């Protein structure tokens, strides 16, 4: 079964390396981090006038990326990617061939799911790496910046880990929706409406917003100080919205397999 899983995962990479979903995982971070860095470089004078200490400068710099990414682009990328991973089989009518290979059915399914999770991981990992490297690059270009005064590694790793974990719920729901329906509009339409609803409930600070997986990425980016003297990095990674997202991911993963194994392949 492990061998089946590895083989299927290998094949998923091979199949999709020419697709937009795969390249978007790389292009999105490069593009957004690049634009933010360019903006900081171009407006270096204005930024310098504010006399930010290291931590705040990093917060401003990474916040520009995290804000755009976490609130808006990430949910849509997740929806598109979950759709694309399944659509490659719907579009080419290849589910039937996939399931006539001498491979364990669960492995084929799990590999697809895992592949989607890996794409999301790659995307967010690149975001963090590029944010940090571009920060230090700016420091080298504009020596007056205070990027050197604070090491953002722990802080950003925690933020991006939270964002990653908080997105798994959405990813799993969208994955199953895309597995069920071959057309673009149904999963995208549902995902779009749910994302908007999630953002609204999160921003309205509704008490139970954390129960909606679509609110979780927005909620995950909120910083709550744990105590007066606590360092800013001390916020917990596994907050309640993260747990909701993880539970949702596990449940949807199981439901997805159930659907696939019961369904006859037409």
């Amino acid at each position, binding site marked *: 079964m492990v061998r089946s899983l590895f083989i299927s995962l290998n094949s998923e990479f091979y199949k999709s390396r020419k697709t937009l979903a795969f390249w978007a995982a790389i292009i999105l971070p490069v593009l957004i981090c690049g634009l933010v860095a360019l903006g900081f470089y171009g407006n270096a004078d204005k930024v310098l006038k504010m006399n930010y200490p290291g931590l705040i400068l990093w917060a401003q710099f990474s916040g520009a990326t995290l804000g755009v990414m976490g609130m808006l682009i990430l949910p849509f990328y997740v929806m598109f990617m979950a759709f694309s991973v399944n659509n490659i089989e719907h579009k*080419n009518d290849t589910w039937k061939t996939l399931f006539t290979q001498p491979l364990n059915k669960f492995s084929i399914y799990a590999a697809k799911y895992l592949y989607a999770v890996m794409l999301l991981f790659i995307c967010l990992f690149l975001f963090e790496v590029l944010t940090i490297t571009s920060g230090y690059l700016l420091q080298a270009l504009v020596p007056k910046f205070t990027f050197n005064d604070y090491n953002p590694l722990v802080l950003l790793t925690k933020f991006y880990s939270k964002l990653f974990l908080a997105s798994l719920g959405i990813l799993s729901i969208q994955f199953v929706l895309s597995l069920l329906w071959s057309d673009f509009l149904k999963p995208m339409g549902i995902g779009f409406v749910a994302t908007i609803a999630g953002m609204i409930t999160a921003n309205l600070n509704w008490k139970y917003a954390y129960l909606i997986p679509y609110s979780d990425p927005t909620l995950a980016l909120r910083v709550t100080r744990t105590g007066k003297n606590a360092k800013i990095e001390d916020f917990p990674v596994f907050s309640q919205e993260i747990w909701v997202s993880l539970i949702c991911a596990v449940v949807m993963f199981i439901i997805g397999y159930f659907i696939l194994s019961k369904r006859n392949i037409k």
Partner: protein
Amino acid sequence: MSNFAIETVGLNYHFGAQTVVKDLSLQVPKGSIYGFLGPNGAGKTTTIKILLNLLKSPADQVFIFGKELNANRIASLKRMGSLVEQPAIYTHLTGKENLINRCTLLGIPKSKSAEMLSLVGLTEAANKKAGKYSLGMKQRLGIALALIADPELLLLDEPTNGLDPNGIIEIRNLMIELTTKHGKTILVSSHLLAEIERTATHVGIINKGELLFQGTIGELHDLSKPVVKIETNDQAAAANILGTAGAELVQQDENTISVTFKGKEDMGNLNTLLIQNGLVVYSINKERKDLENLFLDITSKN
């Protein structure tokens, strides 16, 4: 050990309330080319999907090389290659990449892909996107994908669909070569008898989910022995006379009597015999049903 590559025992399959396959007992001997014939919608593709475990069959009804399919899914699939309906091809990958991807899934060396491309004559189009292939090229690629693991049993669902006459002949020759030289077993479905007739060693005819005929191609030919069709002014008397003279009556209705054809001379003797007995012979002629008509007869009966 079973002598059948495929055996189904009273297989039934329903889509909701609709019965698609009814009490089907296929027996595909090892090393045969089994022509699986039937009009469109007869249940051929459904049967092939059941044989591939894409559609769940009830337990103990489907056996591949003597092993129950549901309990031995992966082991059985390892021995099978298939082409179901339109070939399933990733259109954004090239022909070669499609084959390499399959090699990955099957755990076989990637070099096998070049070999397959030349076998189906796609070497020159290897690096072209499969989505840009013509229908015939896609079909060839589909066949290459089915063959790549060198399976003992091939299930081909209308493999010559969309191929030009040359392509059809190539596939035909390939099938014959695979069975005679490499000892493979092939189940090939079609709605055209003429296409199957030249290659198949065994034939199964299915309509509305029921198997109407199963046997060797010779047995199918035997069903269409030539007959002498006779029309007279008194059919009952004619039947009586012919019967006592030792002719084998095949069929009799108000207008015609058919007896087994034994030769031209015998046909003349029958004529003389009838006339000597005072009957008026309106017509007497030799008839032979070709297989195509026989097929139509068999499939339109139920």
